[in-house]
């Protein structure tokens, strides 16, 4: 069950370093044309590993409101 409502990717800031993808424990994101892209929002657990480690402010996770 996805815990993220939305994964925002600020493409103009993404430098394609792959850190977010490497540290994503669920495979919710992937690299596409040297930038990060959402692969499967459903898989995202909103663990924030990607957002915390992105050096470029380029990926932002919007958590779902508590159900």
């Amino acid at each position, binding site marked *: 069950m996805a815990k993220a409502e939305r994964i925002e990717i600020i493409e103009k800031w993404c*430098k394609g*370093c*792959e*850190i977010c993808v*490497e540290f994503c424990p669920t495979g919710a994101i992937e690299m596409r044309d040297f930038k990060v892209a959402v692969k499967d929002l459903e898989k995202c657990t909103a663990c924030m590993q990607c957002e*915390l*480690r992105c*050096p470029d*402010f380029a990926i932002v996770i*919007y958590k779902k409101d508590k159900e």
Partner: protein
Amino acid sequence: MSYDYAKYLRKGKLPHIWCAGCTYGIILKSLIRAIDGIGWAKDDIALVSGIGCASRLPGYVDFNTLHTTHGRSIGFATGVKLANPKLNVIALGGDGDMTAIGGNHFIHACRRNIDLTIFVFNNNIYGMTGAQYSPTTPKGAWATTSPYGMAENTFEITSLAIGSGASFVARTTAYHVAHCEKMMKEAFQHKGTSVVEIINACPTGFGRKNKFKTPASMLTWMKDSAVNIERAKNMSPEELVGKYTIGVLHKVDKPEYIETYDTTVGLKK
């Protein structure tokens, strides 16, 4: 969104100049969260840096920011602090900036125990000038000026700080984002010279030529080789080979320089 950095970032300055996968951007975020966490007003912060990739950080944050000359940030910061002790003064720079050209200023700030927070961004290399060896490049490692492998010994930055008299010394890494934020906060709150060595990765200058295929692999190396100081206490020397400790390595209560000066000269009764 877990955290909104916009409040502290200067508008229109992103993307920053750092390379893809350079971990300095991660530290910038930790720094913002740490400052936000302790609630300092932006007007009351002076962020001073030297020259190098790390030293470009102040340009991105909305404080009183001073990008000085190579290695000299601590000298400038000392003047700022003495002229206005109410300011929270942070000096930061790379390992070359702080411990090679700025090494003398670094040890003397520690010796005085002046109330400055000093962050050393240690990426084991001179990033900005294109991968020359620094005082922290490991023995045998490749750099453009050690093409046969580094022959010099390294500085151990935290020992240098402790030996020079700093009253708060910690180590953290770019991988340990929450820990990094915590160490920064503790350093800010400590009265006296606080030094935090932050292990960073320069994938462009150091990583590629030293068997790290990706930026992420450098972060994984940090994760695997860092041992929390509390845990390290129960580990044998053999278990600690190839590891380094993270956490608060040294913390003592000791008179702060400006307070001592002020009472000594009669500025404060």
